[in-house]
């Protein structure tokens, strides 16, 4: 089964009988219900990695500067609260 494959079903008949190999999280994005979006201000970021440590998903990369993976970030805001230099802004999600 192709893990990268995105399953497209246009009508009921095309569905499999049961939820089997119904794509992995590589294809099933889990951020559709985000209302606020954290945005890293790279000028302020000191690269301490605290946001990466606290992200429960984890949807932040352990890099310097860190990157937020918006396909999986649910907008919980923990990183915004935990950032010691207030380098992460809370922005309204617009879709």
């Amino acid at each position: 089964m192709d893990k990268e494959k995105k399953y497209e079903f246009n009508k009921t008949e095309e569905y499999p009988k049961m939820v089997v190999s119904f794509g992995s999280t590589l294809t099933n994005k889990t951020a559709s219900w985000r209302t606020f979006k954290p945005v890293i201000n790279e000028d302020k970021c000191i690269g301490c990695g605290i946001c990466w440590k606290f992200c429960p998903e984890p949807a932040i990369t352990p890099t310097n500067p860190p990157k937020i993976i918006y396909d999986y970030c649910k907008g919980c805001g923990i990183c915004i609260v935990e950032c010691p230099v207030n380098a992460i802004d809370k922005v309204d999600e617009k879709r």
Partner: protein
Amino acid sequence: MKKVVINGDFAASYGALSAEVKFIAAYPITPQTLVVEKLSELVSDGELKASFVKVESEHSAMAACMGAEAAGVRSFTATSSQGLLLMSEVLHWSARARLPIVMSNVNRAVGPGWSIWADDTDSISQRDTGWMQVYVENNQEVYDAILMGYKISEDPGILLPTMVNLDAFFLSHTSEIVEMIDTEDVRKFLPPYDPKYKLDVNDPHAFGALTSPEYYYEFTVKIHKAMIKAKRKIQEVGKEFGDKFGRYYDMTEAYKTEDADIILVTHGTIAGTAKETVDRLRAEGKKVGNLKIRYLRPFPDEQVYEHLKNAKKIVVVDRSISYGKEGAFYSETKASLFDYNLFVPTYGMIAGLGGRDVSIQTIREIVKTAEDNEPNKIFFIGEKK
């Protein structure tokens, strides 16, 4: 073919034996019945080549059966009343996972007051889990319904589990003659279970993963459609079973309904008593008939309408009540008639709760109540007033 004298519990065990189930998981203590006790004997004596797993609850019993069934192994379990209720969560899961498990459920009342006597409240409360529910009249039908249950459930177009419901004590602890079918003949009727998707390390799949609103709806519709499709399959399998083994089954069984003014709608053991009463009332000149409903899910709307359309009064007997409304079979029957724009006086009769006997005299009282009263409401028959 051999004839044995066994109670309804053993008829269920022998049904699983003849179906050559490969896996049984069960919780062995109250409200469990003799069904799994006999099966554990059959397994330990080597008569049935199956794994028998004792688990710590009915919830685990069904969960274990789901695991086995997902691995492509025909599974069986048995329960009753409180045990079935404890299973509730995994009943939904097994149906939605399209695992064609067959389970016998001895219809027993739920507590408090603590009771082990006949009452349908346990299975009726699990009506919407996605399990097909068949209610049987005698021990032969217990045995037959399990064999047919696997055939219907395992059909690739259906893949939904079946619950075979038998009345406590009136069947479960009463001995009757049961004709057992030879294993070779069963094999010709019921081929081995071979699902398209199963747990297999060489062909890994993810089962039952997160399903977003974008997809969930259609999976639910598919289960409904499979249930509807099962109606025809139940008829086909019942006919094939009859052609092969001489006992025909359908979703319903009409008894002297063609010219009847009053038609009783019954299920389970009450159907047998009702048919006997119909004969006696007819001998007295009353045109009474009986429609036995075998399947609550899927519900045989078309047949219910066909058999009831010429009746002057329709009298539905329930051995349970949905508090604040009426009996489930009464609701279902009325809904079917309404769908066909048939408006006939109907009576909902609540009888036999918690194992109270429903005798020929009780059925006579039911018919008399329908004759003497205004319709479209429920009556408590056998209540101490």
